[in-house]
């Protein structure tokens, strides 16, 4: 108990008084004006459907996964969407590990409502076989750091993750035409979710007698505020959901004013999200193109590998050197930093190294097929060759440099 008492974050009366008194003169403790949003940063993960959103100090991570399930009986042709929240005590000591707290439930519900009630997602396109199997989309929201206004940050994170998520394509086939075939990502392009519009949550904190409203409250402001209101709107200005928490009453005229601000902010955030997702998608597409070409090249060259006598000889010669090669590999990390030892070794292998220093050598039966095709088609891709030729070529190149060092120092 005492341990918990010591770990909870608390606020002094000085701060509370200061925040309230300063708000009366339209100032905020972090230097913003009442209707300024904090900086928004959107990051993506290696996998699709993973996003991390940073809103000032607040950080939320979102991960989307899918699964084939049986649909609900009353909606046999619709997929399902479920949102799970994870409030780690690392984000804020006041969060308890284990059972989701009151706020965790509220957060999940607000985001769920925004997406569901506005039918932002096309659920019918998630149906595979009516009444038998539909896609169930699961959104996991992890609060990484609580700097206030978790709802907005989590909502953006969920949207970004849903926008970048791709589910595998599946069709019916087999002998009786009833068998479900899942297509591998390589065979058929995975499909994006159909999202009609982006419901953006914009939160206002209410202070005083309900006459002072502030957008995007920080952690400290949330401790002082009398209540808060979340408007979920899209860029067209449609209201998708409204949530009001806390006891303070708010006048209707103030709500109308907030709605106008919220719709402007929603449009602004929508464009930010779309921009970020677009950049991510083009990057991903170009990566994929590289990968695909590499694959094709591999397949092409595989067909014409014919071991000629000379090549076999080369291969044997190469294998004879393998142990040395691996030995070199093991101290590759400090090859350039620690000179003395490597110098010695590379001189002793001088003959061997010299034979291999120039590009894709004759011992590699695969690279021959690739090099001529791709060297011409990818003149502008830096770092492409290292992917293509693997670490071995790099190893030889660094060896060459150390060898040069050695020769210089000897000469």
């Amino acid at each position: 108990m005492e341990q918990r008492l010591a770990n909870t974050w608390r606020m002094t009366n000085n701060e509370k008084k200061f925040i309230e008194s300063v708000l009366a003169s339209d100032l905020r403790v972090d230097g913003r004006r009442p209707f300024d949003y904090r900086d928004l940063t959107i990051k993506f993960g290696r996998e699709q459907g993973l996003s991390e959103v940073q809103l000032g100090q607040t950080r939320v991570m979102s991960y989307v996964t899918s699964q084939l399930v049986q649909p609900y009986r009353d909606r046999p042709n619709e997929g399902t969407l479920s949102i799970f929240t994870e409030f780690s005590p690392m984000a804020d000591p006041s969060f308890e590990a284990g059972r989701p707290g009151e706020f965790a439930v509220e957060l999940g519900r607000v985001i769920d409502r925004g997406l569901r009630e506005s039918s932002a997602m096309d659920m019918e396109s998630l149906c595979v076989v009516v009444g038998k199997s539909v896609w169930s989309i699961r959104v996991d929201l992890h609060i990484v750091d609580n700097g206030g206004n978790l709802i907005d940050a989590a909502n953006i994170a969920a949207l970004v993750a849903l926008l970048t998520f791709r589910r595998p394509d599946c069709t019916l086939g087999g002998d009786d035409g009833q068998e479900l075939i899942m297509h591998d990502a390589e065979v058929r392009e995975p499909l994006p979710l159909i999202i009609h519009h982006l419901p953006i949550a914009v939160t206002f904190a209410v202070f005083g007698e309900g006459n002072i409203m502030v957008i995007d409250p920080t952690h400290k402001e949330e401790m002082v505020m009398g209540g808060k209101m979340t408007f979920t709107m899209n860029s067209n200005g449609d209201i998708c959901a409204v949530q009001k928490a806390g006891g303070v009453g708010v006048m209707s005229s103030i709500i109308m004013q907030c709605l106008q601000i919220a719709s402007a902010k929603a449009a602004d955030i929508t464009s930010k999200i779309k921009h970020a997702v677009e950049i991510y998608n083009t990057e991903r597409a170009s990566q994929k193109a590289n990968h695909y070409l590499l694959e094709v090249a591999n397949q092409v060259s595989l067909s014409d590998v014919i071991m000629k006598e000379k090549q076999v000889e080369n291969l044997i010669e190469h294998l004879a050197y393998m142990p040395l090669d691996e030995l070199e590999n093991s101290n590759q990390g400090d090859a350039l930093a620690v000179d003395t030892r490597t110098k010695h070794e590379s001189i002793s292998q001088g003959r061997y190294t010299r034979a291999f220093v120039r590009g894709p050598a004759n011992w590699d039966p695969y690279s021959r097929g690739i090099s001529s095709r791709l060297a011409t088609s990818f003149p502008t891709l830096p770092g492409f060759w290292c992917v293509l030729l693997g670490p071995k070529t790099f190893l030889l190149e660094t060896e060459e440099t150390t060898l040069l060092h050695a020769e210089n120092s000897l000469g």
Partner: protein
Amino acid sequence: MNAETSDAPPTSLVDRTVVPGDTVLDLTAMANQTIKLGAGLRQDCDTISVMKAGKLRLSKPNKYWVESSHKRYAPCVEDTVLGIVVDCKPDNFLVDIKAPTLAFLPVLAFEGGTRRNIPKFEIGTLLYVRVVKANNSMNPELSCVDETGKASEFGQLKDGYMFETSTGLSRMLLSSPTCPVLEALGKTLSYEIAVGLNGRVWVNASSPSTVILVSNAIMNSESLSGVQQKIMVEKLMQRLQ
């Protein structure tokens, strides 16, 4: 640990980043073996090794310690800290100083404190206090008087604004000569500041906008060098005018 560290002369690591396991000093190689060890260092037979990551500091002639930046505070005797009153008990105030456990502030540890004039603090009061006892497995003990029994600067801090930073930043603010950011701010603005070694900073000024400006300037200076801090403050001042 690479070969370079252990062969190096003992003082070469001073003011550089060290990590747990680094050997800082070899006592056998030293003529005068009297040294004083501070936080983050440990003696293993004839060597002094590092226990936490941070920068190694040396106070001439022989005091060594490792300095690092945390968001939590490990109490240390004679540190001045900012605490928040959590509870009032008949004998002690329970004070939160960002330590693993709450600290005790005896009700008599005030200037001229007797049973008759026990101060009244409501919960959430901000205090500037001194750590007098810091032992393992015991709650730290605080005091609102200095060694001579005078209140000096200790006691309740009224009004103003308190914010939390890291222990590294608060140490930087307290260092002498005066920290560049405070000096640069002080040229044009007048403000009052109290820095606790537990990473809490309290700022007060006549106008609230000054308080906001000073506190944000301090929070932004966490990772800036002295020159960068001055440039940042100058830019802030230009924007203000």
